[in-house]
């Protein structure tokens, strides 16, 4: 009979206990869902129900097309207003999962006579799916440890900033639903692997298909599952369960994923998908070998068989390499290389490197996004090593891979977050289990002695393996956890009741005493409270800004809304013809299309590097060079973002060097980055700025008439902290059309050609009376034949 640290009520029937715990579990999950959704609503409360940032604006626009015209029209949608004049085949270059999801929700709600605006569905989709993510994380963790760890994991992922950053209300992006799909696919995979069930394998494949339709990050699953399967094979854990689970997932999932037009034949044509195909082939060979082995007993034959298995695997790898070499299989893409070599993108694909979320992660952001989970995470991984069942191998691999990727790219923090939550929950619940469990370890001295005896005995038989000890202790742990069928919640209830009764005083002190238990538990609860506090603070302050609308605070502490973007976009919408082409840097393409509804040259779907480089060239060249480019592309308006007046640092002058670099990539003879620096190599916009810089269209458009604002005083650029020259730039080929309240958005109209065939510069000079006194033409007409 084990001794107990505190009394448990003994008059409860086991059925009552099970029912109560499951009820409590459901209530807890409901609260977790509520917390997950509620904490994501800061964005709506602080601002309004608005679509955030850049990509969500395209998703929103596409969803409106889907809802208005139906799925079929959406599928074949050719958008002539994007990438003017090339147009964009939207149906074939988009992951439609997100739009389809909102579309289905919209249709269901309208069928139920709930006329909800599509915008509100889009805004609230991410919070809604976050509760599903919490649930699927619960299911996943439950498979690894138990329900209590699952609940902790669900609570963690519900409010952890690393996930909230991508799923606040209004952040209508693919990641919003993708993390749920990721976790649910992994859960089904684990389940299929555990049970050897083709059913769960197929469910995993279906959710894999949904994931493929929703997010380009599906390649993570495509490589994680084969990696796990391969690791199990190498560990000698081949089983028919693995064979059934993997084969059903791969066959169904691959065929399904090829139905997404954007993916098409990639699963059989690109290197990213070859790992899955290779492992599939390897499994078939091994399965065949196992079959033969079970029928043949000859030892030599088995060796031969193994040799042939290895040989075949080797040949398969060679075949894949050969096919890649021949060009039948596309080699790894640049995006992939940039995961291994962080300097790769900057050198070869500046467009990728220019995106801030593709930069390597800074260390503080790990703590910012994960708080105390980040140091529970390794503990959780160690716990997985202690158990090391198939599913624990999965978590270990996932943890290692995701940690690496999160270090390489900021945005991949998102894929790390779920595994951190799972691992931290395992570690945390193990701590709680140990300290809440009223069953005291039986006679530790005896155990130590017996284990010593055991180890001595095992030393005698097999000096190198301490396995019996660990096995035994593991069994002991299992026994103890099995004996407390009530689980931690029951324990907690019990501990509260026992605290009142407070008997067996001599046992309430010391390592197993109540005091130690209470200290550890209070400490744990304290950490949780700090975690919740931190998450709420980060969410409300850092991750809830729509970035379309900016907020600052007045001297009296009240909120001041800076709404320049919408002001300018609506100006375009209301004052320009519907066909007016707007040129801007690609960051603002989706917003212009979504809010101003005007054709754009380039947008955030960066599919055409040359087109982007053309815009970069126009921005970084002088007016005379830029004007023919603008005319050729029928540009009517040029839009620049300028933060110098109010100190908005994400403006175009700060992005300008990327425009130069991208343009230089295509026209190295015409655009050279060093020309934009001062002689000392500084990036300056004041009097010392280089002539190339001062003559560039971007500089001129940003600082045109800026000095006038200071009425003769010294004009200051608040972002760069530099003095702007008093005599500002002049424009001959563009006219200022609109400048927003805080000067953040400036729109210029491109002048039409001079009707008399002069170049606009001299026409302007003539109109201003700066006529060059010349009666004879400089260039004489060529003699006519």
């Amino acid at each position, binding site marked *: 009979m084990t001794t107990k640290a505190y009394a448990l009520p003994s008059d409860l029937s086991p059925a009552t206990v099970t029912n109560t715990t499951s009820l409590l579990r459901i209530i807890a999950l409901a609260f977790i869902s509520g917390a997950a959704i509620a904490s994501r609503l800061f964005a709506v409360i602080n601002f309004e129900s608005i679509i955030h940032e850049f990509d969500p604006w395209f998703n929103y626009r596409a969803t409106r097309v889907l809802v208005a015209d139906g799925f079929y029209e959406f599928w074949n949608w050719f958008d002539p207003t994007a990438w003017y004049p090339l147009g964009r085949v939207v149906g074939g270059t988009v992951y439609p999962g997100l739009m389809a999801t909102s579309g289905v929700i919209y249709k269901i709600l309208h069928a139920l006579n709930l006329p909800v605006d599509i915008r509100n569905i889009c805004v609230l989709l991410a919070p809604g799916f976050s509760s599903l993510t919490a649930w699927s994380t619960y299911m996943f963790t439950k498979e690894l440890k138990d329900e209590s760890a699952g609940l902790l994991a669900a609570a963690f992922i519900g409010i952890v900033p690393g996930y909230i950053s991508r799923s606040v209300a209004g952040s209508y992006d693919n990641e919003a639903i993708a993390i749920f799909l990721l976790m649910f696919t992994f859960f089904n995979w684990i389940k299929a692997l555990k049970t050897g069930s083709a059913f769960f394998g197929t469910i995993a494949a279906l959710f894999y298909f949904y994931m493929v339709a929703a997010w380009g990050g599906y390649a993570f699953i495509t490589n994680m599952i084969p990696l796990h399967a391969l690791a199990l094979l190498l560990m000698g854990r081949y089983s028919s369960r693995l064979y059934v689970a993997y084969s059903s997932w791969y066959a169904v999932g691959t065929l399904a994923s090829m139905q997404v037009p954007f993916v098409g034949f990639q699963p059989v044509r690109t290197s990213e998908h070859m790992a899955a195909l290779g492992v599939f082939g390897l499994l078939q060979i091994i399965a065949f070998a196992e079959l033969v082995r079970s029928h043949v007993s000859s030892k030599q034959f088995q060796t031969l068989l193994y040799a042939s298995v290895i040989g075949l695997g080797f040949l398969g790898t060679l075949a894949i390499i050969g096919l890649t070499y021949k060009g039948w299989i596309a080699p790894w893409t640049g995006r992939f290389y940039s995961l291994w070599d962080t300097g790769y993108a900057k050198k070869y694909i500046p467009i990728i490197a220019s995106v801030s979320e593709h930069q390597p992660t800074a260390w503080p952001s790990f703590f910012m996004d994960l708080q105390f989970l980040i140091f529970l995470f390794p503990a959780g991984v160690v716990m997985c090593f202690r158990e090391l069942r198939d599913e624990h191998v999965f978590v270990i691999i996932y943890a290692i891979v995701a940690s690496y990727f999160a270090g390489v790219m900021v945005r991949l923090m998102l894929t790390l977050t779920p595994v951190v939550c799972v691992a931290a929950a395992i570690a945390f619940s193990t701590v709680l289990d140990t300290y809440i469990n009223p069953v005291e370890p039986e006679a530790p001295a005896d155990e130590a002695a017996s284990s010593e005896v055991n180890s001595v005995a095992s030393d005698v038989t097999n000096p190198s393996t301490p396995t019996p000890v660990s096995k035994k202790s593991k069994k002991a742990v299992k026994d103890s956890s099995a004996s407390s069928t009530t689980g931690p919640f029951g324990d907690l209830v019990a501990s509260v009741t026992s605290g009142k009764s407070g008997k067996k005083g001599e046992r309430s002190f010391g390592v197993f005493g109540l005091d130690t238990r209470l200290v550890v538990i209070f400490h744990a609860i304290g950490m949780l409270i700090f975690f919740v506090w931190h998450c709420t603070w980060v969410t409300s302050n850092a991750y809830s800004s729509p970035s379309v609308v900016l907020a600052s605070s007045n001297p009296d502490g009240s909120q001041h809304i800076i709404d320049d973007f919408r002001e300018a976009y609506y100006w375009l919408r209301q004052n320009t013809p519907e066909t007016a082409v707007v040129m801007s840097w690609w960051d603002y393409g989706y917003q212009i299309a979504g809010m101003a509804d005007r054709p754009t040259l380039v947008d955030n779907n960066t599919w055409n590097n040359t087109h982007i480089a053309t815009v970069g060239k126009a921005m970084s060249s002088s007016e005379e060079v830029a004007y023919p480019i603008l005319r050729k592309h029928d540009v009517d308006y040029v839009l620049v973002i300028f933060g110098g007046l109010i100190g908005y640092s994400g403006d175009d002058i700060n992005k300008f060097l990327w425009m130069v670099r991208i343009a230089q990539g295509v026209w190295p003879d015409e655009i050279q980055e060093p020309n934009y620096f001062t002689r000392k190599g500084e990036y300056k916009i004041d009097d010392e700025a280089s002539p190339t810089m001062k003559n560039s269209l971007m500089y001129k458009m940003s600082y045109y008439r800026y000095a006038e604002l200071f009425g003769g005083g010294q004009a200051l650029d608040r972002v760069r902290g530099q003095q702007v020259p008093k005599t500002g730039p002049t424009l001959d080929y563009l006219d200022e059309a609109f400048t927003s309240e805080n000067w953040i958005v400036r729109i210029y109209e491109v002048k039409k050609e001079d009707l008399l*065939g002069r170049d606009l510069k001299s026409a302007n000079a003539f109109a201003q009376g700066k006529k060059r006194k010349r009666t004879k033409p400089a260039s004489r007409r060529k003699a006519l034949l």
Partner: protein
Amino acid sequence: MQLSKWSRPQSWGFLFLVFCLGLLVNVGASSEPSFEENNVLIVHDPSVYDLSDPSSVPPQISSFLSELSGYENFKLTFKTYSEESLNLFIANEPIYNHLILLPSSKKTITDKVNFNQHQLIDFINQKGNVLVVGGSDAALPNDIRSFLNQLGIYPSPQHFKLVDHFNTEDGKVKLNNDNIVNKKVFAEFPDNSFLYEGSTALLSNNELLFPIVKGSKTSFTTDNLEEPISQDKTWTFGDQGFVAAGFQALNNARLSWIGDDSLLNSDLINWTFQKRNVLKLQFVQHYNNESPEKINETLYRIKDNVIYTVGISELKDNKWVPFEINDDEDRLQLSFKMLDPYQRLNLEPLGPVASNDGELDATAFFVNFTIPDQHVRHLANDEYKRSWDIPNSWVYFTSALCVAVLWGFFVLNFLFIGNTDNVKKNV
């Protein structure tokens, strides 16, 4: 893809443009140019030509003026350069349709505020037509010279005149039809010879500017025949010097300059005042050959066969008549472009058609072509062949069917043939 209206060359993706190569014509812009009232302002200097006394005016000028006043709907207004108010605009709207600038002995204009180089440029920008008459003895006021310089016409200064020692008759330079550069505007000299005495001009490389009559090869322009020829003392050499030039702005406003009033002829006047060589694009129609019922669609997809038709009228005797291409060198072309022209195709005449109601007033031109395989709309998913239309797919259909049927056999076999054995064994 959308079709552009003629004067607005902007549309989605590809756009169609009609080009008239080699034709000095004016397509459809100054709509109904001569049907309405035409206000003509004639500015002159009484000390050069006293227009109030017709007998003192040279015969070319008087016949020119009588020809003008004989035109239907033309209302002439005479003003002098020394007039107190010489307005071209009222509230930025031009008062006159056409402007004739005769030579002056003075270099300045009295009403400099309302009549200067900028006002003249505005006049052209507002589609006004200008005829400038130069002269060697009486030159043009400075503002008019400066205005002409902006267009790329650099007339010789006062007292400079064209001299050709090899080709002189009666003290004048002899020109013949070979000197006419642009026969569309200026057809020929009567009797193939013309005695010219007057100023010349240098022309710039402005694309909108074209010479009409050039000086002879051995001619030059100078104001001093006594001294040896030098760069400073001459204005032009050889056929660099032009005695008549034309200009058509992007808004189709026309201007012509002549070095002397003797060159005035009705061909030139009619061209300048938009009475001839004016075309009008009456209609544009395009459709997919496979679905002719859908006219002027905004989007075409790659490999569509498109029939493109335009109706063009020409102005003749104040009436729109079907336009015919008479010159072998002239072509009417369609340019199909996206950033760069992908196709430039000749339009073939189809025959006269009626653009609105009744009269056959336009010629239809058409071209039938295939949309190039560039970034125009892609094939939609239901525009490909169905799977059963592809013979290769029959193999897969057959095998799928075989598997289904064989599985059915297998189930039947399992249920009915093997069953009895199992029962026996179990028993």
